[in-house]
């Protein structure tokens, strides 16, 4: 969902056909586009689409029809099993291309870690069927509506994960206007800027640090490196999420925001709520609450946290690194729960600082595939190599300072603060500024897309 072909060919062509087509045709067109996008990335992805849509629709109908009978539970279990199998078999880690099959030493089903929606469609399908089972709403009889909800291509890359009850009314409307299109364009440009200018650079910074042997890594470089990785993860996922929301806005859909300044969290539980909120809500509704309902004992709560965090981490890719990081997160969440009272007494800035330091401390488990290497990296971060800084640290700071500073400002919500406080509230100024900054970003992003075209395919979400 990024590249010159996407921006200059797909986007205008799609927008033109979608906006000009009559209302009944729009859903079919979205579905065909989803299939086309999957085919473009990897035709094997069509299996994911077909399985998720069919299982979601059929099991939804069956569960609803047998809702008062015990068999509905079995049907739901089957639906969940099928979709989890699809998720595990087809979802590849964008960061290193790993999936369950490669972890097991087998060949991946997909040729490359491209956008086929394998991380999103199973979640949509499961969420819809669980809600029908819980009698939250009736099953949908119109196949096309369920198909469009499950295979809604703008959210393929990085969400947001949609809820059917949220999506359904908008689907019926399919209503768009100039304001919505302009808002979509702004989101797409912002997403591209985040991906091209910050995320890509943060990944290069992380690669530079990874190029240094861990045993000789100075503490400062280690902290810079892991901070870069943290920014990379945030900006990469949030960029694609913004682009997805932007496309949806052009189509007239208003999707929920997935990120709310997560690195300004004051605790790990707060971080979970703010980092990919829609995924958090999905895990909370369909995993955490399902387990908690079985009993209020502490062990159930622990199990609920463990399973939810594990699922959320595995959503970013099925690999050992996700499991290790999930375990570290669970330890932190439990420790936080135990120390809840003394922690609350600390001033908020101290709590934020403490959280950031602890998050960066456990992040090497996500960044590095070998947990032992991650431990060595953490040791280096705390001066275990007896080197505080060297000339390389100086090079890293001088080269990447602006990018890191921008990353801090954006992820810290400084720009959001200005908008909230309505600092740019002059109507006349806004009228001029808005088109100008969109075009400036377009020029900026085009220059990046032309220049780094080939390296965009290095890591694909």
């Amino acid at each position, binding site marked *: 969902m990024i590249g*010159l*072909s996407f921006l*200059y060919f797909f986007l205008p062509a799609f927008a033109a056909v979608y906006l000009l087509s009559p209302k009944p045709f729009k859903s079919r067109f979205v579905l065909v586009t989803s299939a086309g996008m999957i085919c473009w990335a990897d035709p094997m992805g069509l299996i994911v689409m077909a399985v998720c849509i069919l299982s979601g629709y059929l099991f939804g109908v069956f569960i609803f029809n047998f809702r008062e009978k015990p068999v509905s539970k079995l049907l739901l279990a089957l639906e969940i099993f099928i979709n989890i199998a699809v998720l595990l078999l087809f979802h590849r880690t964008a960061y290193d291309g790993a999936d369950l099959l490669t972890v097991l030493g087998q060949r991946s089903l997909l040729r490359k870690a491209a956008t086929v929606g394998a991380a999103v469609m199973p979640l949509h399908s499961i969420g819809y069927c669980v809600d029908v089972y819980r009698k939250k709403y009736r099953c949908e009889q119109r196949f096309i509506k369920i198909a469009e909800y499950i295979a809604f291509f703008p959210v393929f890359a990085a969400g947001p994960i949609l809820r059917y009850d949220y999506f359904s009314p908008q689907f019926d409307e399919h209503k768009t206007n*100039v*304001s919505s299109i302009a808002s979509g364009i702004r989101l797409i440009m912002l997403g591209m800027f985040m991906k091209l200018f910050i995320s890509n650079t943060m990944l290069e910074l992380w690669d530079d640090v990874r190029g240094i042997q861990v045993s000789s890594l100075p503490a400062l470089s280690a902290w810079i490196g892991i901070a870069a990785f943290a920014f990379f993860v945030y900006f990469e996922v949030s960029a694609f999420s913004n682009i997805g929301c932007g496309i949806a806005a052009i189509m007239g859909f208003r999707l929920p925001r997935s990120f709310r300044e997560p690195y300004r969290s004051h605790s790990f539980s707060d971080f979970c709520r703010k980092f990919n909120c829609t995924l958090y809500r999905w895990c909370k509704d369909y995993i955490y609450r399902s387990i908690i309902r079985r009993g209020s004992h502490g062990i159930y709560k622990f199990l609920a946290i463990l399973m939810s965090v594990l699922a959320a981490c595995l959503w970013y890719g099925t690999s050992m690194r996700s499991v290790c990081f999930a375990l570290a997160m669970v330890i932190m969440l439990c420790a936080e729960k135990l120390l809840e009272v003394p922690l609350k007494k600390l001033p908020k800035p101290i709590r934020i600082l403490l959280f950031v330091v602890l998050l960066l401390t456990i992040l090497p488990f996500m960044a590095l595939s070998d947990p032992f290497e991650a431990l060595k990296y953490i040791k280096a971060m705390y001066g275990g190599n007896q080197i505080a800084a060297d000339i*390389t640290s100086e090079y890293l700071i001088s080269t990447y300072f602006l990018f890191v500073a921008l990353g801090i400002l954006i992820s810290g919500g400084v720009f959001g603060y200005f908008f909230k406080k309505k600092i740019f509230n002059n109507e006349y100024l806004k009228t001029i500024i808005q088109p100008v900054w969109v075009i400036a970003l377009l020029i900026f992003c*085009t220059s990046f897309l*032309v*220049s780094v075209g080939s*390296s965009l395919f290095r890591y694909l979400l």
Partner: protein
Amino acid sequence: MKKFSDAITVAAFFAILLMFAVSTLFFQDKIPVSELLKKNADVGQTISEYVTDSFPMNKNWRSIYTNIMVFAGRSRFDDIYIAGDRLVKLDNHQKENSMIENVAYINELAANTECPIYMMLAPTAAGVYNADIPDMFNDKSQRERINDAYLQLDRRIASIDAFYPLYSARDEYVYYRTENLWTGFGAYYAYYESTKKLGLQAVTLDNYDQEFAESGFFGSLYDSAMVSGIKPDRINIFRSKYQSPVTEVDMYDGDSTKQAESVYFRSALKGSKRTDIFLQGDKHIKTDIYTDLDNESELLIIKGSFANTIVPFYTAHYSRITMVDPMKLKEADLTLSDVVSLDDYDRILVLFDIESFSNLKCFDTLK
């Protein structure tokens, strides 16, 4: 007012998109996608590459990108590093193991001939200007890597040190600023050093007239990085003050042989790679250079790109110089014995830059 602003945003955005899309599709003279698809089966990637290559004002966009990044503090673009006033291609250590393999092939070549064999591994600009490059891109110096390679050579192979003379002359114009090659000056310093080992009397610079064949070109490193603020390069040709000894140059391509009368090919100055003025660069499998010297001493050079600039200096000493490019041999599925007979030569010189020598996988053709 907001509606007006939104309308302008939408109209301007899509107008720009359409303008460039139409221009990319209809007004750029590029190879058709169908042709590209024959080379690469991945449709998505091929189309993306086609769009990127055909995008209007490609160079200007890349220049904007580089300038933004340089302004933001970046000094490395993939494997190109801005080292002061020059662009340097960074070493690729990933394939270092093939150096041991390649040395073994050279040893095998020496074992199969009675002819004296010499080896010159030249440093690239990344090796000579390593003080300007951060240590993280320089984990093992080229000097060490060259010495490692020399230590593994058979005793019969004499090594020629090109590092020291080039390093000593690093403040002079010994490497191009925008091309990953040494200049005529750099080649001369290496030639001068080599004559000591080859038992020749070096021709001093005052015997040459210096000609600026090209005084404002940007090389391939510049084309890749598009960094503004780097001065253009010049190509110096050293012409003998006396008559050139070269009488004929034969270039063999596998199925045809071309002839010329000089080692300098000015037609290359009109092409994209200006440094091909020296013996047309790396285009030929074998190049024979005949001179009017009657000492009948003949030199075989197993060559990399760096050899093209140094060979004109050797023409003052040999009646025939044959250059064979193992990479071209590999492409044509030939071996060294298919194109030359080692017994015909008095000396063999293996001449590569350390980077190419470490990474190339074509030395099995020397069997």
